[in-house]
């Protein structure tokens, strides 16, 4: 029973990591950039919700979409200032630039909100439900539902809508997409904003579980990155799997070994997976490089 409890906890946490990972993967596929500012985008989402819900007193059903809108606008600004000029830069340069963006945002948040931690009430009620011996916190269930729901929605969007198909084409081959009359710039922007919105939602979902801090993006970003690589950066479907493996590993480590080493164990799992299957657990092809 204890095991089941930990598993639920882990899957719930893991679906949030999966959403963060999805943001990394979308941007990686379209832009060829690992966006190290993804964690900070999550923090922006969480803090927007905090301001709108707690400070302005808006009810959750209003604050939630508004916070998403705020995340969209801010991510568009980030894309315009820092990412668009970098399309032709070298890979390492791009990576460092995204790190610069993340330092910038993290410290802006610290300037505005201070270094204190904020606690955020659960959007779905705090009272744990008892099913047999299991104690279930509504937030955990909602995290899973929203996580998987978003993935399904995204999948539908990418496959069925014109914009989604254009985005996929751009990710696959930028030049060919341009020749087919797709506005590459617009699809790149759309992908970036969409990835940021997913990140922002992940930030909002995790805020009742962990405390909100200006530097929360650092750890959340690293976990999401780890999940993305676990699932394989070239497989959007792997994000959730990677996230859940990481979340479950963390919770089992905390439950059975020691909570002090919680994240260390998660990283050891990651390290082992990388060594044994370098291209991510979802990949079928062998990593053979052609000249």
């Amino acid at each position, binding site marked *: 029973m204890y095991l089941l409890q930990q598993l639920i906890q882990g899957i719930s946490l893991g679906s949030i990591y999966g959403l963060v990972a999805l943001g990394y993967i979308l941007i990686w596929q379209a832009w060829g950039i690992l966006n190290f500012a993804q964690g900070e985008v999550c923090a922006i989402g969480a803090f927007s919700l905090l301001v709108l819900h707690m400070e302005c007193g808006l009810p959750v059903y209003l604050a939630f979409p508004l916070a998403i809108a705020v995340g969209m606008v801010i991510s568009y600004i980030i894309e315009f200032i820092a990412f668009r000029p970098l399309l032709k830069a070298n890979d390492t*340069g791009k990576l460092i630039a995204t*790190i610069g963006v993340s330092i910038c945002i993290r410290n802006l948040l610290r300037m505005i909100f201070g270094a204190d931690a904020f606690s955020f009430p659960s959007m779905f009620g705090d009272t744990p439900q008892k099913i047999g011996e299991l104690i279930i916190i509504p937030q955990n269930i909602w995290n899973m539902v929203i996580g998987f729901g978003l993935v399904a929605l995204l999948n539908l969007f990418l496959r069925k809508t014109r914009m989604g198909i254009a985005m996929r084409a751009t990710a696959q081959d930028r030049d060919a997409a341009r020749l087919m009359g797709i506005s590459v710039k617009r699809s790149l922007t759309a992908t970036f904003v969409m990835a940021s919105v997913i990140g922002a939602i992940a930030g909002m979902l995790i805020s009742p579980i962990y405390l909100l801090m200006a530097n929360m993006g*650092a750890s959340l970003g690293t976990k999401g990155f780890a999940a993305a690589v676990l699932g394989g950066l070239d497989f959007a479907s792997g994000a959730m799997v990677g996230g859940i493996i990481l979340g479950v590993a963390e919770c089992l480590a905390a439950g059975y070994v020691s909570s002090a080493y919680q994240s260390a164990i998660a990283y050891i799992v*990651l390290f082992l997976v990388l060594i044994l299957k*370098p291209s991510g657990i979802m990949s079928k092809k062998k990593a053979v490089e052609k000249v």
Partner: protein
Amino acid sequence: MNFANIYKKTRIWIILAVAVMLPFIVTNNYWLHIANIAGIFAICSLSLNLLTGCTGLFSVGHIAFYGIGAYTAALLATKLHAHFFVSLICAGIMAMIFGLILGIPALRLKGVYLAISTLAFGEITYQVFVNWTAVTNGTRGILGIEPPVILGIKFNNYQKYYYLVLLILVIVVVLIRNLLHSRIGRALFSVREGEIAASALGVNTVMYKVIAFATSSFFAGVAGCLYAYEVHFISPESFIGAESVSVLAMMVVGGIGSIPGSIAGAVVLTIIPEALRSVGDIRLVIYGAAIVAIIIFAPKGIGGFLEWVDGLLMGSRTGKKMAERED
């Protein structure tokens, strides 16, 4: 002897002379401390440059080696009262051992996958620093590292210690420069440019990657040891993942693969946040923005700019000759 020739012969001595004179110009203890930290980070960024810049092996957890060096030195200094040079070498060797432990399995990985395994390594190391209280004293850190005594001279203030850092920095620069200009260095560059092509030409890529990991982590450990003796107190907070990122930023802002660039990057990125202290909390926002701006407007980094100036002073009109030679 025209100007270009004189410049070519004397430039390195001029820079050294300025570096030696610095403590007489800047007498403020606080800024001397910053200068020492900049020198220490210059060694760290040079070591990362050897691994990432020259060999193309991406490391996002480099601060772990620096931390291992710092903890080794601190433990040797406080528990065994070891001589400075003993701690220095042991710190380097200890970091190198961990570099090999990480490096050998990680050889299977490429690009971002290697990057994330180094990231994981950095996080694991940090967690061990925090939680292995029996050895590292946890978050309280290790206190009371005595200033080093060499040949009867006690390096008990920032000014004296500055010369020690400078001496080791110069030694490291000479070692890395000679390494890069040797057969090994060319092999490392060939691994970066095209691993398959390199192995087709008979370069033992596996061996050279291991060499890159080992030397790089050795120098990072040395830098960590210098840091421990500089601040006399170490705690895990100095070795968080964000520090790896700032070392990486130093290397890239300085210019990938360039020795003067790595040093310049370390100096500039150490000074910017300190110089901006007067403007308050916004300084780190500016620091982040400055990194983005440098990448956008000067893709070759400060090193590229230095090489351009260097080329101009050497008489090439466009400053291109030097840059091409470096490539």
